[in-house]
């Protein structure tokens, strides 16, 4: 995996092969980043917009990637920034919990197990930081040091955020 990333990085740094590198980057990470975004914005169309911006900006500003962190960490960081920009632009909708809960019902596959729908609804009731940390740690299996590289928070803070997120999710689901 790391070896593959090395090839992608070398291609993206080579002016003659940059576009080929972009193709490989998309092939490897597009799906993963899409689901990361989709879980927080819920709507497919919004996730698609953020996904486009994420990969375009990753390509455009690739010279800023210093290689201190993993390629996937860097992509999550760009995706997170794009997501935060997106919700700042659509504040009115994203500030409303009921909007997001309705959106989860609307977007869910009709014959899905109810617990999965409830878990996504619970995720939407979390404060922004807890939502991101829970998404990255629980769903994306990232360790706290990687998450720290993405959000800029220290590991203890992240652990506390994750703990509170899990508590809130449990409370939400039990109350249903």
């Amino acid at each position, binding site marked *: 995996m790391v070896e593959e990333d090395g090839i992608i990085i070398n291609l993206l740094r080579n002016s003659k092969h*940059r576009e080929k590198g972009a*193709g490989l980057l998309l092939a490897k990470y597009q799906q993963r980043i899409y689901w990361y975004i989709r879980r927080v914005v*819920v709507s497919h169309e919004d996730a698609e917009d953020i996904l486009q911006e994420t990969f*375009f900006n990753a390509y455009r500003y690739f010279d800023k990637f210093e290689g201190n962190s993993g390629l996937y960490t860097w992509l999550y960081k760009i995706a997170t920034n794009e997501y935060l920009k997106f919700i700042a632009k659509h504040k009115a909708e994203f500030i409303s919990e009921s909007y997001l809960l309705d959106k989860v019902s609307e977007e869910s*596959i009709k014959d899905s197990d109810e617990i999965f729908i409830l878990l996504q609804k619970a995720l939407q009731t979390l404060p922004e930081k807890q939502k991101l940390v829970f998404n990255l740690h*629980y769903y994306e299996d990232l360790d706290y040091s990687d998450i720290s590289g993405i959000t800029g928070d220290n590991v203890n803070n992240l652990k506390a955020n994750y703990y509170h997120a899990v508590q809130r*999710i449990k409370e939400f689901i*039990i109350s*249903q």
Partner: protein
Amino acid sequence: MKNFDLASVGKEIPYDIPNGFLSESSAKILGRISSYEKKRMMRRRRVVVMYYAAAVLAIGIVAGIAFYPQKSNQQIDYVLKHVSDNDLQKLEKTVTSDPFY
């Protein structure tokens, strides 16, 4: 729901994505990257052309100043020799009647 254990729930997402979305999305992003690259190359080419044009202009100005043909006294003498007295008088009158003379 009374009993809930996060560890046993699993990570399934209840959302769907349209068929072929990922390949369509890749094509869109790569298309955008390709047109960005074309624009970037055009911009770079335009800057190079502008630099060359400025350099050629600067060389032209320097060369023009250095090699501009100066009228020699011989040429002036030749002209004066071939002007009629009448024309010379008219010329003198024009010059002396100039209020700024």
